[in-house]
């Protein structure tokens, strides 16, 4: 079981406080669990909700970018599937 921290109740991602392997169970800080779909290194993000392309990714209760592909709960969320709205 790899532990993940949810920083705000509005978030749709959680942050790994320990590295997680694909197929493992993720223990979220709100008590729920999730299956980890890809390897997630320490401090990287896991999706806790399903996101469509163009949906906003929320962390710290704020928009940190938008999904560039379909994202399933348990997916690694990073530069391969999220883009900045600034740059």
């Amino acid at each position, binding site marked *: 079981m790899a*532990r993940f*921290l949810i*920083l705000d109740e509005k978030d749709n991602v959680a*942050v*790994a*406080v*320990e590295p997680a392997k694909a197929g493992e169970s993720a223990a979220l*800080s709100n008590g729920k669990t999730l299956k980890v779909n890809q390897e997630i*290194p*320490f*401090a*990287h*993000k896991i999706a806790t909700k399903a996101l469509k392309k163009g949906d906003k990714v929320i*962390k*710290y209760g*704020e*928009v*940190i*970018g938008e999904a560039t592909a379909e994202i399933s709960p348990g997916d690694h*969320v*990073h*530069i391969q599937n*999220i*883009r*900045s*709205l*600034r*740059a």
Partner: protein
Amino acid sequence: MSQELSGYRRKDGKFGIRNYVAIISAMDNSNPTARRVASMVRGAQAVCPTFGRASMGPDLNQHLRTVVNTGTNPNVYGAVVISLFRSSADEISQAIAKTGRPVETYAIEEDGGTANVANLGVRGALQLMGDAGRQRREPMPWSELVLGVECGGSDGSSGIVSNPVAGMVADMVVDRGGTVIMSETVEVLGAEHLMAARAKDPATKQKILDAVNFCVTYAKEVGVDLLGANPAPDNIKGGLSTIEEKALGAIKKGSSRPLMEVIGYGCRPTKKGFVFMDAPAPGVENMTALAAGGTQVIIFSTGKGNPSGHPIAPTIKVSGNPFTVELLQDNLDVDLSAVITKGMSLADAAKILEHELIDVCWGKPTKADLLGEFEVAISRLCRTV
């Protein structure tokens, strides 16, 4: 534990959590003399600024303002001021003395060279240290606390542990009527719209946006594309996907309360609550600005570690990185790695940091204090010629 604070009351009504005698050098060429004096008088704190000689225009203003405001930080009981020549020493001494503080002034040229001035400075410091030692602590209201928040050596743990926890303690200080100053303007880039939205009035909102925009424009002039370069490769490796995410993690350390004011480098807030100081991000330069801004104590959130502390504003180092808290334990005060290794809640971590803040305010020395990891660097605005 007691939630009350205590401090040394100053003639201007402010409170210091320390009762320092500052040995202040006016500029780089008198730094060695000031250090010599401080090394001969245990407990005296040397304040040795970079540069300062033949500064021009805005640089001159910034240097003088920062030196004077450091000498009138509430933690300073009195000062020995040393300069190469009397007029520049007097300029600083008079400004400090106006606040009711005792000041002794020496000039290397007029008072017979550095060895003589070191002796004279020691004599002056001995007197001041004795006088300072007679002053007693009094109850200090939380509304008199000005907390600085800083981050450096950030890594993946900063945005999820040490910064959010520092922010929770900052909220507590603001809610008790105190002031929190956050700075490092360039780190807000990516989240400046959120900072602006918290601004108390349109003028403050525009100031924060202008301050962040200036960073982008200025960097471009020297060939750096801040938006394109962030997050940096090591940020990306560490899990930061966008500049918004990086900035959000950074500003977490500064309290979530309304933004009351945007002030300049080394300037004093005129309002209580959450205040932003527009100043460069590098740690020593930024803490130099915060201490001149009147912060009596600084919480410094670090991931990979950082040794620096300010000589006048005790600097509390906090990290949530399990490797750093072990490897750099000599330069760290608060270990919050249990959030990562044992699932400790952020609320419990905030309690730990709050207790450390109170302890330091009551006199607990920080690692930076004990090891003397002090440096002062006043940011430059233009070149000397």
